[in-house]
């Protein structure tokens, strides 16, 4: 099977989400990703598990299509094996705390002395340089510091965190872009380079659209819950049977969408009323419009509403919960949710690769067990069975 990144070897020193999401994407695109973990496993595998001794679901979701090896970087033998591995690699990705790689003697320049073609990528909270460089970060800290939290939540409520990996997976994806660009550049220059992504920068990039209101007014973008100050209707509406996620989101951008909607909900005269033609003018009638739509949606389930409105060309989305996403007929029919089999966890549905390349299909392979590929990978570096046994006894792998 052809793969876009066939022949690219990635040494993966990542943990938790911001790094693993990057290397998982590279693996889906066909790179050989070798996840190097300390002998006890990376923290995302162990500390976040719901069952002692069992790989965390969190880990399984972010480490598919990788090979797993263990290595104690703090022993001289482990260090030598790591250097041998780096010499065979194209890319190294890490998301350790600020300064940790330098303390290990594995800073970008030291690594490139071993292998001048090596592309090194670091995912950090705030990035080097600047007053926050040494501050620790993780998802919610970066959401706070990039403006995302200030614009999420109800107008009468506090700033609210968005429960998606904006900063973690977001920064990981940005790092993947940097790495891919550097691979292209290396074909001209023959040498690697250093990539840096700060979570704060990545989240600012994801919300740059909202800065426009600040440019216009000089003021912060307010929290608006689900409503928009620029368009009506643009909100969620309750549906049967009124569970916590029985809602649809409806947004009318054009006058045609508005006309279709008013016809469907039985108020065609509003569709023809010039006072309601512009989405911004309709904001004046926002309460009336929201009531009108909800009176119609609350007689139906969100899936019925989705089919009727979206089917008629009115932008509409059912608010799917995580269980519904994993079973969604559209996602499953497209192969975005795949079923994986794990030796200890059994069978489970897994969100697959959201980018499709016609000549580089992604077959999702479950995350590796701890050290599952030690023999295979170290074998390619010339380590025999007896030697690996000895290294295992010494706690190097």
């Amino acid at each position, binding site marked *: 099977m052809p793969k*876009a990144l066939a022949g690219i070897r990635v040494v993966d020193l990542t943990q938790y989400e911001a790094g693993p999401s990057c290397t998982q994407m590279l693996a889906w695109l066909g790179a050989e990703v070798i996840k190097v973990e300390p002998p006890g496993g990376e923290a995302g595998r162990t500390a976040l598990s*719901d069952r002692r001794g069992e790989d965390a679901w*969190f880990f399984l*979701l972010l480490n598919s299509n990788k090979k797993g090896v263990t290595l104690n970087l703090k022993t001289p033998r482990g260090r030598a094996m790591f250097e041998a591995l780096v010499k065979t690699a194209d890319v190294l990705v890490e998301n350790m705390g600020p300064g940790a790689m330098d303390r290990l003697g594995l800073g970008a320049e030291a690594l490139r002395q071993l292998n001048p073609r090596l592309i090194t990528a670091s995912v950090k909270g705030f990035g080097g340089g*600047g*007053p926050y460089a040494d*501050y*620790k970060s993780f998802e919610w800290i970066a959401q706070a*510091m990039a*403006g*995302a939290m200030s*614009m*999420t*939540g109800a107008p009468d409520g506090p700033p609210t*965190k*968005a*429960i*998606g*990996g*904006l900063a973690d*997976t*977001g920064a990981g994806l940005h790092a993947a872009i*940097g790495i891919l*660009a*550097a691979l*292209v550049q290396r*074909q*001209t220059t023959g040498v690697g*380079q*250093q990539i840096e992504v700060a979570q704060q920068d*990545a989240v600012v990039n*994801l919300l*740059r*659209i909202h*800065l*426009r209101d600040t440019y216009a007014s000089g003021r912060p973008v307010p*929290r608006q*819950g*689900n409503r928009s100050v620029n368009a009506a209707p643009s909100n969620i509406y309750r549906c049967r049977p009124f569970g916590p*996620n029985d*809602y649809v*989101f409806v947004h009318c*951008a054009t006058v045609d969408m508005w006309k279709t909607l008013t016809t469907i909900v039985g108020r065609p005269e509003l569709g023809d009323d010039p006072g309601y033609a512009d989405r911004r003018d309709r904001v004046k009638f926002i309460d009336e419009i929201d009531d009108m739509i909800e009176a119609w949606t609350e007689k139906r389930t969100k899936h019925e509403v989705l089919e009727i409105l979206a089917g008629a060309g009115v*932008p509409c*989305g059912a608010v*799917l*919960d*995580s269980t519904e*996403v*994993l079973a*969604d007929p559209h*996602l499953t029919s*497209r192969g*975005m949710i795949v079923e994986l089999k794990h030796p200890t966890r059994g069978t489970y549905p897994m969100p697959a690769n*959201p*980018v499709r*390349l*016609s*000549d*580089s299909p992604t077959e999702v392979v479950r995350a590796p067990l701890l050290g599952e590929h030690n023999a295979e990978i170290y074998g390619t570096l010339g380590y025999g069975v007896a030697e690996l046994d000895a290294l295992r006894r010494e706690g190097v792998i």
Partner: protein
Amino acid sequence: MTERALSGMRILDLTQFEAGTTCTQFLGWLGADVVKIEPPGGEQSRRNRPEVPGLDAMFFLVFNANKRSVTLDLKHAEGRALFLRMVERADVVVENFAPGLMERLGLDYERLRAVNPRIIMARIKGFGLSGPYHEYKSFDMIAQATGGVMSVTGFPDREPVRCGAAIGDTGTGVHAAAAIMAAYIQRQRTGEGQLVEVAMQEVVANFVRGRFVDHYRDGAPSVRRGNDITGGVPGGAYPCAPGGLNDYAYIYVQTMNQDMWGDFVAAIGREDLLADARCTDAKTRWAHREALDEIISAWTRARTKHQVMAELGKAGVPCGAVLDTAEILEDPHLNARGQIHTIEHATRGRVRLPGCPVRLSASPAPTTPPPLAGQHTAEVLAELLGLSTDEIADLRARGVVTP
């Protein structure tokens, strides 16, 4: 011209609004030659709530730096023919039109491949090119609803809430940029282009996958938990002086890290809590979270969010001030790192824009001003297709290109 990562890659950019424009802007920062092909009068988002009538909207400016602009009428047969001649000389075409539009124009992937087998065509859609929802229209919040992020954002006793950041739109553009470069790398081995497809719903599911853990553990949907981190004290947004809408600091002491708790109580001058039975470990702190959050809030309320962040940050405790959008543009860290770029726009003058969010040591990414509609029409037609001034004047006279 400075050598950059994607120097030599030429992109024909048919994108509009956000999900596509953000993709091609990213590739522009990385060095690609992005030729934005716009209908006469310009792409719609130039007029999307222009703050000053007649000038390009800020919406357009934040997504269209580092591009050239050509206006070309694709509804005109001759316009389509010119476009296909440009495809012969391009590496990538990106589009995010409504479902079916490129097919109606006769510009689907098969057609493009027929004129240039090396072309990479990236198609950004709400629900993709197949499956039961593929004809449905989408926007950022529609993708957020159907991708699962809305169901877990917000407070337990309240309705689902959209995430402020545009992970459905810009998030999708970022994924598309990665896919395009992967296809470009593959082409260097195979000599052939391919079709790249990215769906907004799927991108949101990719962002939120880490929060599906509850489903796997309990078989039940992940629930809304507001700002709390289950088991973490402190773990949430704490109110700061002077009590404005965004005067909060988000603080999290990792539950498994008892040393970090020690650093935290030292920083807030409450070492006495080390001997407090409520604070033996993360479990006992969680059991007494209301009383402890009150103690923590009393300390944060006496300080601004910037003071709280500086004091805790220096003590090694993860803490972030809740910055609003106005503060982002002023943020000393982003500015010290050169992340906020100032450009000189032809009609708007000096504008500050967030720059390229990825730093490559050998590929600098300055931000150049977003082009006016059709600013580079003559330049690009001459450069790519070798058209003479007279030929371009003739096309202009017949309305195939503007201005």
